[in-house]
C-alpha cells in the first residue's frame, strides 16, 4: 500500500466524518422537546428559558450552530453537558477508557476462542466437534446479548455468588487513574488486589460482549481454513512429513488469516455497538451507557460527542484493517475502490 493510497483513504475518512457530523447535528435537532425546558423544568419562566437557550446557542440559525460546533470540536471542545454542567470531554474520557477496556477484553476472548473453535471445526470436519462448534456459533449469533448478560448475572452473581453483579470495581475502591484502564493502572501501581477485583468485574460483561463476534469469527475461520487446507502446499507439507500441528498452525492458519483479519475489523464495530447494551445491563460506566442516558436526557452536546467518537473509532478500525491487509499480504495493492 503506497502513501497515495493511504492519503486517499484518509481523505475518504475525513469526508465521511464531515457527513457523520452533519447527520448527527441535524438528527439531534429533530428530537422533540426543548432541552432548555428539560433542564429548567416545567416551572421555568419564559425569560429564564430564553436566557438559557441563548447561553446554549439554541437561538441561533442552524448553520451558525453547526459552524460553532465544528470549530469547537476541532479544538477538542465538545461543549458543556446540559445535564451535569461539566465539560463533555471531561465526562467522556474516563468512560471511553472503560469502553475500550471492555471492548478489548471482549475482542481478545472472541478472537482466541473463535479462532480455536474454527480451527477445530475445520480439522475435525463433519464430526461431532464440527457440528457442536458450528451449532454453538449459530446460537451465538442469534442470541440477544442483553438476555445472555442477564442470565450470566443470575447464574454467577445471584445463584452461585462467585462473580460481582455490576460495575468496574468494588464500591469504595480508590485508585489513582493513570490510563483509566483499571487492569493496567492496577499493574502500574502493583496493586494486585485491585487487579483481581477489576478482572472479576470484567469477566461477565466481556464474555457477554464477545459472544456474537466469537461466533462470526469461528464460522469465518472454519471456512477460510477449509479452503486453504485443500491447497497443494498443505499436501506438500504433509508429504514432507511435517507435524500436523505445524501444518495447521503455520501453513494453514497463516494463509487463512486475511479473511479472519477483515472479520476482526468488522467485528470491532459490532463490539462497539454491543457495548451500548452490555454496559446498560452490567452498569458498566462506559460510553455506550452514557450515550443512551444522554439521549434520554436530550443532552445534545454529550450525544454529539459520543456518536462522533464511536464513528471515528469505527473509521479508524477500518483504516487499520486496510493497512494490516497490505502488511499481511504484499500481493494486495489496495486501489482505493
Amino acid at each position, binding site marked *: 500500500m503506497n502513501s497515495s493510497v493511504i492519503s486517499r483513504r484518509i481523505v*475518504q475518512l475525513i*469526508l*465521511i*466524518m464531515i*457527513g*457523520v457530523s452533519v*447527520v448527527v447535528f441535524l*438528527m439531534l435537532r*429533530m*428530537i*422533540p422537546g426543548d432541552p432548555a425546558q428539560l433542564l429548567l423544568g416545567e416551572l421555568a419562566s419564559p425569560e429564564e428559558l430564553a436566557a438559557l437557550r441563548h447561553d446554549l446557542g439554541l437561538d441561533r440559525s442552524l448553520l451558525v450552530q453547526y459552524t460553532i460546533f465544528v470549530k469547537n470540536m476541532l479544538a477538542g471542545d465538545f461543549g458543556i453537558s446540559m445535564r451535569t454542567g461539566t465539560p463533555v470531554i471531561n465526562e467522556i474520557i474516563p468512560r471511553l477508557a472503560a469502553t475500550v477496556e471492555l471492548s478489548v477484553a471482549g475482542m481478545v476472548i472472541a478472537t482466541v476462542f473463535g479462532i480455536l473453535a474454527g480451527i477445530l471445526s475445520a480439522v475435525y470436519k463433519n464430526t461431532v466437534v464440527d457440528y457442536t462448534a458450528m451449532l454453538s456459533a*449459530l*446460537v451465538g*449469533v*442469534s*442470541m*440477544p*446479548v*442483553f*438476555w*445472555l448478560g*442477564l*442470565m450470566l*448475572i*443470575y447464574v454467577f452473581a*445471584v445463584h452461585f455468588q462467585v462473580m460481582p453483579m455490576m460495575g468496574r470495581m468494588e464500591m469504595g475502591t480508590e485508585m489513582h487513574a493513570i490510563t483509566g484502564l483499571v487492569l493496567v493502572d492496577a499493574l502500574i501501581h502493583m496493586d494486585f488486589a485491585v487487579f483481581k477485583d477489576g478482572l472479576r468485574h470484567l469477566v461477565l460483561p466481556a464474555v457477554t460482549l464477545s459472544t456474537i463476534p466469537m461466533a462470526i469469527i469461528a*464460522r*469465518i475461520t472454519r*471456512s477460510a481454513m477449509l479452503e486453504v487446507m485443500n491447497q497443494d502446499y498443505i499436501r506438500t507439507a504433509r508429504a514432507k512429513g511435517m507435524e500436523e500441528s505445524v501444518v495447521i498452525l503455520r501453513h494453514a492458519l497463516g494463509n487463512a488469516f486475511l479473511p479472519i483479519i477483515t472479520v476482526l475489523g468488522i467485528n470491532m*464495530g*459490532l463490539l*462497539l*455497538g*454491543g457495548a*451500548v*447494551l452490555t454496559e*446498560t*445491563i452490567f452498569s458498566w460506566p462506559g460510553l455506550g451507557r452514557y*450515550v*443512551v442516558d444522554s*439521549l*434520554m436526557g436530550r443532552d445534545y452536546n454529550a*450525544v454529539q460527542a459520543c*456518536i462522533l467518537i*464511536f*464513528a471515528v473509532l*469505527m*473509521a479508524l478500525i477500518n483504516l487499520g484493517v486496510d493497512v494490516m491487509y497490505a502488511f499481511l499480504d504484499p500481493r494486495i495493492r489496495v486501489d482505493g475502490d
Partner: protein
Amino acid sequence: MGRWDMLRDLLKNKNTVLGMVIVGCILFLAVFGPVLAPYDPFLPAPLDRLQLPSREHWLGTDSLGRDILTRIIYGSRISVMIGLVAVTISLVPGTVLGLLAGYFGKTLDAVIMRVMDVLLAFPAILMAVFIAAILGPSLVNTMIAVGIVYIPHYARIVRSSVLLLKEQLFVQSVSHMGGSHGRIIFSHILPNALAPIIVYATLGMGTAVLQAAALGFLGLGAQPPQPEWGAMLSEGRQYLQLAPHVAAFPGLAILLLVLGFNVFGDGLRDVLDPTLRT
C-alpha cells in the same frame, strides 16, 4: 435452475428444513395465538404474581400475575410483524438505491454510495437507538428505526450485483436493441439479482427481530402493556433475583425465532447463491 429443482434442493437442505420448521411453528403461534393462548395477555391477576412454572402456568407468571406463555404467544405476532415490516422498510429503498447507483454509475453512484457510507459509519444499534429517540418510543417507530438502519446494507449488496450483471451479454444485447433503462433494470437485472437479496432479507429478519428487542429492552420500543419480547425481558430484569423465569423465557423466544431465520437463511444461501457461502 427450474422452480421444482430449486424446491427439491431446498427440501434436501437440512438447514432450510430446520429453519422452516422453527419459523413455521412460530408463525403458526402468531396466526392462531388468540385460539391457542390459555389466558388473557393483558389482564392482571394480583394473586398470581411471579409464580414459578407450574401445571396451570407452564412458563410461570410475571409481576402482574399475567401468564408468560400467553404473552409470549401474543408477542410472537409483534416480533414476526417487526421482522417483516422492518425488512421491507430496508429492502425497498435499499434495492432501488442500489439499482440506481450500480446501473447509472458516475456521479449518482458516488453520491448515493457516499451517503450510504456515512450511514454505515455508525454502529447499527446506536443508529437505531438514535432514530427511535427522535421518533419517540413506540412499536411503529421501532420498525421504522430498525428498517432505516439497514437500508445501506441492501443498497451495497444490490449495487455489487448490478455492477456484474450490467456487463453481461444478455443485458448488453437488450441495451443495443434499444431497450429502455426501466425495462433493462426491472425485467433483466433485478430478477437476476434476487438471490442475494432474498438470502440477505431472510438473515435480516433475524437481525431486525434482535435489534427491535434491544430497543424494547432499552425502553425505546413497544410500550407496556404490549407483550413485546424485548420489553417483557426488560421488565423481568427487575425480578431477576426473585423470579428469573420472567426474563428467561422471553429471551429464549427471541433466540429461537432469530435462530430459525438464521438457519433458514443459511440454507437458502447454500441453495440459491453458493458463491456467498462462508
